[in-house]
């Protein structure tokens, strides 16, 4: 079995530089000291960039650092320049799931999440949903399905499109029916939803086999090789953003596109968003766009009363949707992503037909020459 909790290398990345720096300062060395210091710090930076992955997977980590101290290759990341990048490069197989989940890359937690802030994590990934800018185009849903190969019928992200407000009977109203005329006072409201990567994730705590875990940088992930598919985490998620994957037969959910994030890219839904309604970034970095947005605008989060401390923030969130105990959400009309398996869908005239997923042995046979 792989060891899961490696809390030993939490503070190792900071200690060498600071210790040497204080040593040199106390010794009072002048120019020569700074030279030596710069040499040491260069090495130390290289050490920082290099992950502590040695024994468990046998990979050696070669990061190309030029003479001009410019990091090249996939590690380069303009967006987060000034902050240390996650330790991954393409040569080390960042698309290899096992390597991504290698606990030596980042410490992971199954229970004591309160320890995470104490360890001074480099990053804390979060997302801001700017509801002013979301047009409900569903591009993010398609991009996510394409990027992560999500099977038919299940979603890692969805965008609820609903009409909020009321239609009241009024004289000379806009809507005229046989029964009378009505005055609408409604507006379209879009609610993009993903896994909230909670700071106190209930899904992680209920897992009987420790298959799901929280990384030091805040991303909640599932080890698909350990998950037994019991569905407890799906029940425990208050946001209904977990599902049972019918192909790989495990629980599944949004990963914040961890393979892209570790490679220095943004999640697929963020890059595909036409209105920049989804903003991804580092909540630890006060200059990052997410931190700036959270600082400048009032934000809401979904179901805070559940005590999960979600890390997805909404700007201009309809107050009815914040609380879990608010029944007003029931009176909203879901227009696009209504659950096809609900009574409301039936009442709106839809027929409940459950499509089956067909697995063809040779799906592209017709195109063969």
């Amino acid at each position, binding site marked *: *079995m792989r060891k899961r909790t490696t809390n030993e290398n939490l503070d190792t990345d900071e200690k060498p530089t600071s210790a040497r720096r204080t040593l040199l300062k106390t010794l009072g060395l002048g120019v020569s000291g700074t030279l030596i210091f710069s040499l040491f710090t260069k090495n130390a930076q290289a050490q920082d960039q290099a992950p502590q992955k040695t024994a468990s997977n046998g990979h050696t980590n070669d990061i190309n650092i030029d003479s001009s101290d410019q990091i090249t290759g996939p590690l380069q990341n303009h967006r987060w320049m000034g902050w240390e990048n996650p330790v991954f490069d393409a040569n080390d197989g960042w698309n290899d799931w096992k390597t991504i989940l290698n606990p030596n890359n980042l410490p992971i937690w*199954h*229970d004591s999440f309160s320890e995470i802030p104490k360890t001074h994590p480099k990053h804390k990934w979060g997302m801001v949903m700017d509801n002013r800018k979301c047009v409900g185009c569903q591009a993010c849903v398609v991009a996510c399905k394409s990027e992560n190969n999500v099977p038919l*019928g299940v*979603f890692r992200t*969805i965008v*609820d499109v609903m009409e909020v407000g009321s239609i009241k009977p009024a004289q000379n109203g806009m809507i005229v029916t046989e029964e009378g005329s009505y005055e609408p006072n409604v507006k379209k409201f879009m609610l993009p*939803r993903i896994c909230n990567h909670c700071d106190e994730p*209930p899904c992680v*705590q*209920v*897992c*009987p*086999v*420790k*298959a799901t875990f929280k990384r030091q940088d805040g991303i909640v992930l599932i080890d698909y090789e*350990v*998950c*037994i*598919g*019991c*569905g*407890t985490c*799906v*029940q*425990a*998620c*208050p946001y*209904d953003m977990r*599902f*049972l994957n*019918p192909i790989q*037969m*495990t629980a599944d959910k949004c990963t914040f596109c961890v393979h892209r994030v570790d490679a220095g890219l943004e999640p697929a839904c963020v890059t595909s968003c036409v209105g920049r309604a989804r903003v991804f970034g580092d909540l630890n970095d006060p200059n990052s766009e997410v931190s700036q947005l959270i600082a400048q605008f009032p934000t809401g989060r*979904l179901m805070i009363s*559940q005590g999960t401390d979600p890390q997805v923030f909404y700007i201009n969130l309809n107050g009815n949707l914040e609380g879990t*105990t*608010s*029944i007003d*959400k*029931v*009176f*909203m009309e*879901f227009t696009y*992503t*209504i*659950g*096809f*398996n*609900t*009574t*409301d*869908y039936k*009442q709106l005239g839809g027929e*409940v*037909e*459950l*499509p*089956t*997923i067909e697995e063809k042995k040779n799906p592209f046979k017709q195109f063969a020459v």
Partner: protein
Amino acid sequence: MLEGQFLETPIWGLPIVIYPFLSGLMAGAFVIDSLSHLFGFKKFDPVAKLAATVSFAMVLLAAFAPLVDTLQPSRAVWELYVRDHFPYSPLGVFIVIWTLYVILMLFEMYFDYRVDNVERSKQGGLRGAISKFLTFGRPEVSQESIKKDKKALFIISAIGVPLAFAFHGYIGFVFGAIKARALWTSSVMMLMFITSAIVSGAATVIFFYIIGYSFYSKKNKVNLETLNALGIFTIFAILLDLFLDVVEKLYSVRAYTGAEEFHGWELVYNWGGALSVNYHIYQILIGLIVPLVFLLFKKVRQSKFLMLIIAILINFGVWEMRYDTVIGGQLLPKISQGTVIFHAPWLGFDGILSGIGLFCLGLVLFFVLSWLFGWEDNPKSQSLDSNENK
């Protein structure tokens, strides 16, 4: 379940309904068994071994139902043992308590049937050889050894009753502790599970007692006094269960609960709701009140035929209680609107066929164990007991 999985779907299907039902039989049957060993209810002596056999069969089966529902059952056994998540996960607790309980039941069965096995080992043949093996080299039948057995059974029962309650209580905890499901987060959930487990366990013991001893037993017959005592015990269990149902009903009043749970009750359980008939008619009326009214008459309690029907009704009602809890809780969506529609498929992991298969497996297990240890044997002591009672 996997076919057509849309935005909100019941994730736990029939196997998870069957799982608390069967493990409830286990816990209830063990309580009946322990009443004889622990508290010296002599009237329950004739059914003690039967109850132990039912309990043993059901605890073996109890592991299968959640395994059927997991999508990776081959992994589950190993991972649950090796990577437990003891303090938090109810399913992680499952494997610990289940293992302890199986070990306990092995001891229980050994001491319960040791004297029988010694006698049967004299017959020879395959069954004799098995019985000889099952004595594990203690062929004594002296009074002292029997006394030792009784002492051991007393200790086992003393450990087993809390363990059985824990086993079934944590199943209530699995549901009651999940805060995301508004209709599950009830403080009486655990107690309701335990109480209805006792009710169903008693009914199952009555069922197998009447069927087994009227048709398959050559030496003993159904003791009407025992049947009467079982009936009286069931009355008290039903009263407790009804009380908790009233508490749950009060819990769904607007003043005492959150908006979501209140509306959920209206949408799912109250009149016009998705499971209103299941809840009010099947679970409460047919499952509890009708049997209670009939059981109040002594003539009914001593009638084999009527008791058989009552046992079936009670088990049906308890089955409905499990169904209403497990499925009903999932019919209230977490974040979208309306109620979720549940269709139990015929095929698949949590299909109706796998449910039927689980029940059949339970019957097979019970009959194999009964063949192994004997329906009624213990020819001497038990017939003496029944004579004494007469």
